[in-house]
Every structure is written in C-alpha cells, then in structure tokens.
C-alpha cells in the first residue's frame, strides 16, 4: 500500500514538476527576450541616452573684440582680473572661511548674504564667487594666507576695461549682464556671467565684438561633477573694431570741458568730424561715467548718483540731446535765402534793434541794433533783425527744406542707439501735429533758430561740415575698420598718398552754388576773426610751418530755455546771468570749421545752460587747435607704439 501511494505521489510530482519547470523556463525566456529587446533592438536609443547622461557640453565664452581708435589705440579692452572663489566642499565651514577672508579683503554684509545664498543653491563642488576685481594687494594677501584658507581659490578672468574711463563713456557704451529680453537663441547669452554691449558702440557692434563661443565636452557624473574633458573646440574671438575716433582729440575735447567749465556746470557735448569723410574724430558727452560699473552692476549708491544728477550723465548729449540751434541756424537760413534769391549777399537790411510784425515786436539781441547789415555782416554779428526779415521773405517751408538738405532734423545714420531726430517745423507739420495753421510770427522765430526748431549736436556737426565742404552730403561715420590694425595702417597710408580727401568723389552734391557758400564762409570767418564777431574771443593764433595762419570759422548760438524772455533780455538784463539758476540759463552753442584756407574739420559744441554761444566758442578753440595740429585725417600718429605692435593690450 505504501508503495502504490508512493508511486502515485511520484507520478503526480513528476507531472507537476514538469509544469512548474515549464512555467519557469517560459519566464526565463521572457527575461532573455527583454534583454534582447533592450540590448539589441533598442540599444542605439539607449546608447544615445547614456551619452546624453554622461556628456555635458559647456560653452566657452570667446574673448570680446577690442575697440580701437583710428590709430589702433585701445578704447575698450579686456583686462585680466582676479577674483576669489570658495569651493564649499573643500572648506570645513564656509562662514569661518568667509570670516578669515574678511580679515584680508573688504566684504560687505550684502556680499556675504549673496555668497551664502549661492552656496545654498549650488552643489558643494561648484565654486562660488566671493569677490571680483581684486587689487594686486588683495590678491597677494590671499595668496600669502592660502594655507589657512582651505577651499579658497583665486581665478583669473577677463573684464572689460576702458582706459579712457568717462572720457568716451557714451560713445563706447558699456557691457552689462544679459537681460531676459536680450535672449535671442545665441547660447552664449545664457552663460552665467556673460556680458553684452548695452549702450554705444559696444551695443551697436555687439555681434562683431562678441565672437563665437567654443565648446567643451565634459564627462559628468550623476551629480553634475565634471570628471574629465573629452573634447574642446575653441571659439572665435570677437573681432576688433577700429573707430574713426582719434583718442587724442577725444581726450582733448573731454579735458577741455573738464578744465574750462566749473564742475557743476559740466554738461556739454562736443563732436569733431572730418568734413570730407564724415569720420567722427571725437564725440564727447559730459558729464561721463565710468563704463566699468555697469559691467559689474552699479551699487545702489552709484545708480542713485547717476540717475539723480541734473546734468544727465547717462544721456549721450552728442546724439540724443535736443537743442534749439539758436543763431547757429543762421547760415542755413542764409543759404536758403540765397538759393531762393530773396536777398542778395551785399544787400543790406536795417536793424534798429527790433522788428514789428502785426501787433508783436521781435527784438534783436543787441540793444539799439546793428544798423544796416549785409549778409556776411549779419552772420558775423549774428543780427537777429536781418534774419527776421529774411525768414519772413522765405517762409518756413523753404527754410526747412534747406535745413533738411544740410542734415538737420534727420537721423544722421551714425547708428548709435538713442539718437534723436530733432525737429524742423513746417506749415504741414504744425497742421498735422497741432491742427492749427502756421503763424508768420513763428517763421521769424525759426529764422533765428528758435521756436520749434530743435536739433542734435551730431546734426549740427554734419550741417557745419556740409557748409564747410561746399555742399557735399557728408554723413557722420564711426567705423574705420573692423578686424585689424593692419587695415588701419592701410587707411592711414591711403590718406597720405596725396592731400586730397579720398571720400570726396563718392559724396553726393547738395547743389549749393560755390558763391553762396563763399558768402556764408565769409560771415562765419568774421564771427571768429573780426573785432565785431560774436566769437572773437575764440580766434586761433596758429601758424603752421609755412608761416600760414590757420584760422577757424564759426557761428555762435544761444538757445533760449525757459529762462528769460528775449524781450526781457533786450531790456538790459543781459548782465544778470549769474543770478539766474543754472538750469534756467540759455544753452550756449558753437559750430566751427577749420582750417579756413583749406577746410577739413568741423566741430559742434553745446554747453547746456552755458549762458551764451561765445562760451561754447571758447571751449571749441583749444579743441580746434588740437585737431588742426594733430591733423589726424592726413597725418599718421607720431608715436606709433600701438600701431607698430598691435594686439598687445588685448592679448589674451
């Protein structure tokens, strides 16, 4: 019985063992099938995913191109900076390390807070910036104490440096961290700490200066720690840009403003331009600012100082300041008058000190009047009554046409961000803008550059250049060459092959008869060089090697702000400027060109609330002397240090 039972058991056991074994075999087959699916069929996909896991592509920021002046002198470069970093995982206690560091370098509370936050946000092997732009002393102190500062490292980086500091701040602009709205798909912009041009040339030519980012493929582990570099592709450094600026002229202009005006009245703009090539040799807006503070983000105090300054240091007055041209507009009115034959140059108009139209009276700036004046004299002495009459005869639209021809009331195309258009009123404009008909009295105001007329200093310099070059439609330009100093050298050599300006042939003529131009030139010459001229104080005393006197011609202008009424002024209150608050005083303007016997350079100058045009003329005088002396359009730089050894400052 036991045997049969045992036999039954065995039979059933064997049957069931085979079933169980079959189930297990099937399951193992499933495993093999899954393995085949993952490791053979889907393998490529998972290989890619694994590589994606393992490999991180890091961008290498390219060094930014330099900005050079026309002779290769550096205007904006990359200088080495040192910063101190702390690696939390290598330091026993971050706050202790910071305390130790605070004994060596200055660490403000808000900086400590930021560091603490950064440490909390990143994995412990990520270096955290403690302080940037260390001085040599600070760096040395940290290096000496390095053994007591575990996890503290000093790192070299590049920072944008502007050797001329505030002297060309508006022109060059600055670089600053990327904002949300700047993101345009360039992955470089997403790099933490990357800076892009935010103003001036830095912004205008940002794409040229920026260059192409390189890449570094690194192997990372699951926590993002870099294990090793697999492949490195260097980027393309940003190209250098060569401006038309002559650093010496720029400095001269900036220093003239800084030294000749009282500090609190230093609110001015000067443009210097080649009248044939349109090359801007200097563009100064004062007061300036140190562009570097934007690269590192200004402190609250710095920001407050800049934004609350009544002199508007953040505005580039040279292109964005809008001023009534005042009497500097008169040459334009004169040319319009000659063009339309409303008066002959030698024909005189009597100035009694006032003009009446309807029930209103317009005054000349000179109490008692100029007597009978012809056109050159009217320009020389800036007789208002003469131009009231001429303007009345012309009508505003014909004046506006000439103004536009000469480049006023239009964007010059220089491209700098923030350039203003200004305004030259016409009858149609008033109708459209105000819905009112034009009044003839307004034409009289326009005739002396007042009323609705407003222009920018860059337009003024373009205008005086076009007058000076005899009516060629020159346009201001800032770029001499990109890429290399060699190109600059070639450009200089080209200019020196003969005395003739090369760009002349390419310029469109404005069809102003030479005899008209000559009349205006004569008037402007007188304004500076005759005893009765409004800018007689600014007459040059410059003689060249050939014993030839170098003279400048110019035209002053005062533009009313909201201060004194012209009528009040005419009633003997001209001596009271110093009692008027600064911000209520008239602007002083001056436009000039030289040398008179062979014009080449044009200058416009505006001093905000500078009381009178002659003050601007006095500022222009040393600048004109400098530019005539240096003659940067024709003469190579004597101390050719930078041109001979290009790339030294920016060498990376």
């Amino acid at each position, binding site marked *: 019985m036991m045997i049969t039972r045992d036999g039954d*058991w065995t039979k059933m056991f064997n049957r069931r063992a085979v079933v169980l074994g079959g189930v*297990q075999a099937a*399951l193992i087959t499933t*495993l093999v099938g899954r393995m085949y699916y993952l490791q053979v069929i889907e393998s490529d996909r998972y290989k890619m995913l694994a590589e994606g896991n*393992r490999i991180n592509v890091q961008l290498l920021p390219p060094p930014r191109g330099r900005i050079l002046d026309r002779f290769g002198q550096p205007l904006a470069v990359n200088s080495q900076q040192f910063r101190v970093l702390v690696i939390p995982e290598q330091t026993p206690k971050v706050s202790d390390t910071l305390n130790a560091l605070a004994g060596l370098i200055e660490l403000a509370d808000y900086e400590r807070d930021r560091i603490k936050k950064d440490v909390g946000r990143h994995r412990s092997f990520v270096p955290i910036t403690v302080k940037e732009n260390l001085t040599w002393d600070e760096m040395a102190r940290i290096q000496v104490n390095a053994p007591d500062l575990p996890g503290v490292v000093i790192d070299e980086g590049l920072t944008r440096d502007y050797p001329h500091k505030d002297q060309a701040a508006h022109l060059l602009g600055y670089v600053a961290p990327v904002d949300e709205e700047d993101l345009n798909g360039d992955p470089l912009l997403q790099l933490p700490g990357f800076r892009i041009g935010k103003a001036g040339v830095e912004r205008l030519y940002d794409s040229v200066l920026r260059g192409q980012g390189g890449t570094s493929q690194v192997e990372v582990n699951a926590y993002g720690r870099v294990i090793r570099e697999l492949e490195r592709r260097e980027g393309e450094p940003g190209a250098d840009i060569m401006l038309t600026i002559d650093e010496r002229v720029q400095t001269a202009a900036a220093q003239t403003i800084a030294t000749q005006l009282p500090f609190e009245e230093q609110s001015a703009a000067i443009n210097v331009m080649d009248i044939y090539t349109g090359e801007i040799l200097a563009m100064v807006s004062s007061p300036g600012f140190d562009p570097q503070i934007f690269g590192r983000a200004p402190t609250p105090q710095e920001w407050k100082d800049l934004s609350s300054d009544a002199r508007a240091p953040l505005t580039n007055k040279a292109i964005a300041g809008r001023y009534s041209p005042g009497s500097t507009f008169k040459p334009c009115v004169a040319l319009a008058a000659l063009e339309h034959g409303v008066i002959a140059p030698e024909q005189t108009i009597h100035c009694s000190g006032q003009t009446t139209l309807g029930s209103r009276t317009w005054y000349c700036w000179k109490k008692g009047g100029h007597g009978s004046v012809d056109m050159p004299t009217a320009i020389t002495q800036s007789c208002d009554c003469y131009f009231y009459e001429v303007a009345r005869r012309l009508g505003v639209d014909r004046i506006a046409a000439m103004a536009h021809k000469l480049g006023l009331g239009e964007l010059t195309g220089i491209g700098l961000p923030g350039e203003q258009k200004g305004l030259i009123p016409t009858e149609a404009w008033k109708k459209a803008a105000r819905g009112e008909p034009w009044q003839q009295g307004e034409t009289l105001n326009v005739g002396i550059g007042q009323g609705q007329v407003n222009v920018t200093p860059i337009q003024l310099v373009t205008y005086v250049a076009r007058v000076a070059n005899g009516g060629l439609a020159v346009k201001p330009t800032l770029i001499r060459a990109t890429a290399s100093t060699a190109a600059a050298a070639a450009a200089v050599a080209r200019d020196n092959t003969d005395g003739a300006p090369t760009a002349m042939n390419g310029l469109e003529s404005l069809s102003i008869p030479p005899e008209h131009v000559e009349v205006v030139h004569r008037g402007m010459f007188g304004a500076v060089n005759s005893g009765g001229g409004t800018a007689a104080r600014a007459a040059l005393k410059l003689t060249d090697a050939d014993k030839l006197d170098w003279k400048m011609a110019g035209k002053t202008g005062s533009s009313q702000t909201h201060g004194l009424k012209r009528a009040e002024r005419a009633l003997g209150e001209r001596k009271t400027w110093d009692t008027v608050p600064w911000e209520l005083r008239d602007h002083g303007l001056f436009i000039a060109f030289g040398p008179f016997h062979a014009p080449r350079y044009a200058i416009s100058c505006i001093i905000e609330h500078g009381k009178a045009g002659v003050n601007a003329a006095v500022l222009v005088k040393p600048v004109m002397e400098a530019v005539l002396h240096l003659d940067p359009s024709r003469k190579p730089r004597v101390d050719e240090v930078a041109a001979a050894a290009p790339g030294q400052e920016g060498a990376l």
Partner: protein
Amino acid sequence: MKDLGFMSSRLRRGEMSFHEKLWQMSWSLVFWIACIFAIGFAMLYSAANGSVMPWAEPQLARFIVGLGILVGVAMIDIRILMRYAYVFYFAVMLLLIVVELRGAIGGGARRWIDLGIINLQPSELMKPAIVLALARYFHGLGIEEVGSPLSLLVPLALVFVPVPLIAIQPDLGTALVIVMASAGLFFMAGVRIWKFLAVGALGVIALPVAYYKVLHDYQRDRIRTFLNPESDPLGAGYHILQSKIALGSGGLFGKGFMAGTQSHLNFLPERQTDFIFTMLAEEFGMIGGLILLSLYCVVLIYGYAIAFRCRHQFGRLVAMGLTTTFFLYFFINIAMVMGLIPVVGVPLPMISYGGTALLTLMLCMGLLMNVFVHRDVQMAARGGFGDF
C-alpha cells in the same frame, strides 16, 4: 550520480559516516555556485571602481563562511531537519516578532536585528524556514488528505501569519518571494488547480484594498512608476529609467569591465545591491547577462534533478521549494531592473552585496545539498526516525 549499490541499504537508512556524506555531496553544484559568486566578486570589485573594498572583500569572507554553512547543513541528518522543521519555523517567527517590536531602524524599514557582529534579517531566514515547515506538513499527508480543503488550513496559516509581518516591515520583495515559493510548494504537494484559481480570484478582489490600505506611499509610487516610468524621469521613475539606459547602452557585448559609464558615473542607483545585474549587463552586454542567466539555469536544473532523484516526499518538496525560491530571487531581480515588473527590493542571488541574503542562500543551497546527500533515506510519515 554514482549508484553505490553495495551500500544502498545503509544509505536508505541514513546511517552514513561524515566521510561518506562528504563523498556523496554534489561538488559540481558547489563549483557552479562558486562560479556565480566569482562573477559577483568581479562586479563588486568594479562597482567600487576597481577596489576590493568596501564590498568585494567582505563579501568573499561571507562566501567562505557560507561554504562552511553549506557543507555543515548538508551533513545534518535529514530526519533531524524534518523533526525540527517546525521548531526552526517558530524560532524565525519569534525573531520576526522581535524585529517588529524593537528592530533597529535601517533604510526606512525595520528589517534587522543587530546582533553585534552581524545584522540578522529574520525575513530572509523565513524563506528556508517556510519551505522546511511546509515540506514537513505535506510529507505527512496522503493524496486524499491533500485534496481536503480542511487540511490546507494549517499550511495556509504557516504562510499567511509571517507574510504580513514581513510586508509591514516593509519588505514587499521578501513577502512576495515567500508567498510565491509557498504557492509553488502547494502546487508540488498536489493541491488542486481550482484552489489556486479561487485564491487567485480572491487576490484580484483584494488587490485594490491592498493597494490603497496596505501599501506604503513609496510602494504605490513604484507601481505607478512601473506603469509609466517616463512620466517622472527625475523622481520615482529615475532609477528604472537609468537602469534601462545602462542595460540598453551596454548592447550585445557591453562597454567592458569597469567601463560602464552609467554605473561608474553614479547614474545607476544601488549598483552594488539591487541593480548589480544592470551593471553586469552594461559592462558585459547581453552576452554577460546570458552567461549569468545560464549559470542560474544550471543551478535550477540541479535543483530539479535532486528533486527527481529524491525518494521521499519531504526531500522532493524541500528541493522544489528551494529551487523555486532561488528562481524567484533572480527572476524578480532581473525582471525588475529591466522594467518588466515594479521595483521591489530583491537581491540578485550570490551576486548582490549583502550578508544575510548570501548566507541565507548558502543555507538554502546547503539544504538542497542535504536532500541530495540524503536522497535515499527512508522517511517516516510524521518525521523523525519513526517506525520504519
């Protein structure tokens, strides 16, 4: 296997000397086990980036101890094993309760008793204990008795009293292995198919209740993740996704020993324990995975062969129960790392780092060997040295 006919009567009676028993052992099985362990040693060496510390060397020491256990257990008279099967079972039960009451907190789960030199994991010991207890119970039953539902109450109690204790530790993997291995044993003992179906149906009904009432949040997460692993690649789905990436990127031939990027750059979690198969398959590819799987199958085949060769029901059931347990270990682990089933913490047998699991496995292998050594021993119906 040798048929030592001249001593067969003595073998049947189980009166072998120590020397004879050693001679009777299947040393080839020990060799295959050692082969599997050798792979594990190599993988632990790789997991530590080419160092025997901290995993490979301690594991080798445990394996040597485990070999001792294997041989020692194989030498015990099988009738003693049968006699004390229940005692062993209740002792492990007691340990489980102790763990429940005052077990050390470890890894978010109360699984260990700290014995000073070793962290004892009673849930692991329950695997052989339940096999022995069930085998002893069914050994005493006739076919007719197995057919009666009443006779199943005791074995069901044997299974379902410890399982909840283990599940709430929580150690779902071990609970699952025990239930499934027991089911296999029930099946081998002759329990009718329809009864399994009935219990299965009951289970399906109980499933939603278990899902919402019994399972922990992290366990529910794992199931959700299993159903849709890409839904949360950095959260709960991270492990399994990274494991699949590692496996898949290994391809047919693998990335080479110690060159697994996923494993060595820490994308793979727990590469020395639960996910060690992934690492093997990343570094040695599908070929490496198949070799290990084949070695496991060799052990399975030995298990079946031992069961078939055994002349008594107790031995057959013990052999089948242990073989099934062994199968479940590696099947669940490998299926888990390949994303076939949800993540459950089951180690890869003989390979994963961990003392208790390895020693328990060696104990199980020792029991299997014991059955082989005592395959011809005459066993009484109720165990012990009985009335034959």
